[in-house]
């Protein structure tokens, strides 16, 4: 009898805890499926009336890359394995219901795949954590990586890059009704959130000593704190911020000019220059024929921020 009543008490208490925890985490989460599916089909409430549509790509036939190990492996496998993110809205995000990934980076990956002769159904997207990108490329676990991957010298020692396909820069995400924060010169005395260990966070801590930083594991926790007034702004690359703003354009906006420069590239195995050239060619072709712009408008463009200039490719 004693035993039974204590178990019951514990059970109720556990339920109570789960109830509250769900309530707190669940509310912002509930936006995700609606937001991401809305994005791939052109979100309702997109600026400018008609919803922008994603470009379609025709896979090339008879592609042959002599001397490319990566390509040969993909060819014999019958599909490409592409590393991506699945937790960045409108860049690379996975719909929990359908398991499909969508976003700007995903479109870039599809453009490249099409020119290598692989249709969208021949791509396997693999979520790779940021800390594991270099390893995955070096070991050949993935053929290439597209996911807010900044080109820098230290990384070039381990992997190589095609691109840049997008120039991002550190910017600020604020609540829609915010008027005090308009750019980097207005964050003095404010609380700004960024992700653990990230370059933008290091920049904030080093160059903005009068700004309080708050650090969470992921940007979604930062955005949640922003929506619940715990922080005044979220700061990281504008591409990532635009993704969150596109997901919730009624409550969020990106402000100010980007104040750093991050060149996003496609991460590649270091030893395969033939493959690298093919990826660069593919990027160039789709930037020229307007696919790039279309992909931007249908994803990050939903945030209300206009497309930046397409960067010139660097071939080395």
């Amino acid at each position, binding site marked *: 009898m004693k035993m039974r009543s204590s178990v019951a*008490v*514990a059970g109720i208490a556990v339920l109570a805890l789960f109830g509250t925890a769900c309530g*707190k985490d669940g509310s912002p989460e509930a936006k995700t499926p609606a937001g991401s599916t809305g994005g791939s089909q052109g979100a309702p409430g997109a600026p400018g009336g008609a919803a922008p549509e994603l470009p379609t790509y025709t896979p090339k036939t008879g592609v042959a890359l002599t001397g490319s190990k990566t390509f040969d492996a993909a060819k014999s496998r019958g599909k490409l394995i592409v590393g991506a993110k699945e937790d960045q809205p409108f860049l690379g995000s996975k719909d929990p219901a359908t398991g499909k990934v969508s976003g700007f980076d995903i479109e870039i990956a599809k453009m490249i795949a099409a020119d290598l002769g692989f249709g969208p159904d021949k791509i396997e997207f693999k979520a790779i954590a940021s*800390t594991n990108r270099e390893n995955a490329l070096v070991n050949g676990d993935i053929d290439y990586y597209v996911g807010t991957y900044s080109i*820098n010298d*230290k990384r070039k020692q381990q992997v190589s890059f095609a691109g840049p396909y997008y120039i991002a820069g550190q910017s600020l995400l604020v609540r829609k009704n915010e008027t005090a924060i308009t750019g980097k010169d207005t964050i003095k005395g404010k609380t700004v959130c960024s*992700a653990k*260990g*990230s370059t933008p966070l290091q920049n904030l801590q080093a160059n903005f000593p009068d700004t309080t930083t708050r650090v969470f594991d992921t940007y979604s926790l930062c955005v949640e704190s922003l929506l619940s007034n715990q922080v005044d702004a979220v700061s990281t690359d504008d591409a990532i911020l635009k993704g969150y703003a596109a997901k919730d354009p009624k409550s969020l906006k990106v402000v100010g000019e980007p104040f750093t420069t991050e060149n996003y590239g496609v991460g590649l195995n270091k030893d395969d220059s033939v493959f690298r050239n093919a990826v660069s060619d593919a990027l160039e072709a789709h930037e020229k024929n307007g696919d790039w712009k279309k992909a931007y408008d249908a994803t990050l463009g939903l945030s209300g921020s206009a497309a930046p200039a397409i960067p010139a490719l660097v071939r080395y």
Partner: protein
Amino acid sequence: MLEVIQDNWDLLRHGFVGTLKLTVVCGIVSLLLGTLIAACRVSPVPPLRWFGTAYVNLFRNTPLTLIFFAVALGFPKLRFNLSYFEFAVIALSTYTAAFICEAIRSGINTVPIGQAEAARSLGMSFTQSLTQIVLPQAGRAAVPPIGSLLIAMVRNSAIASAFNVTELMGTSAEMVENGYKSLWVLLWIAVGYLIITLSMSAALAALEKKLAVVR
């Protein structure tokens, strides 16, 4: 391999101190809280016993990350604002205390019932017999399991880095972001944890030796 530690000495030290601070504060808080809950669990007052049982069943069976979420994100919403270090202490200590309580209770079970009966026949109250007769003997038997729990707590403290607290594991993200090979970064972090946990093991072994009695 060595450049990781040479270039990031300050960062690693900062993280190491963070973990150490969490360890010391949470260790003390969870030991006190755990003992208190254990006292509740064996007390002659039914509501206290129910509270103790409910506490252990709730916090021992909930994932620590969930407790961190509830504290770090829930408390500010209830206008209960503390620093994130304090939130981390609350989350980690509440969780660890449930296990400490059980370790102490198992220690109490090793004390022959005659000890409590003798204390009672001398006219000691429950609190007196618990604190002066039973717990000192129970503590001896509880040292090894409590040692394991405290070491587990050090490792669990890594979760705090997800919630705005600087500790050792959290520094890995920054070093990897800056382009250092993750394998070497993690190796040095493991060394940092080993320094803390192995010194704890040594201290606990010494304590156990000192308290040992021949039965």
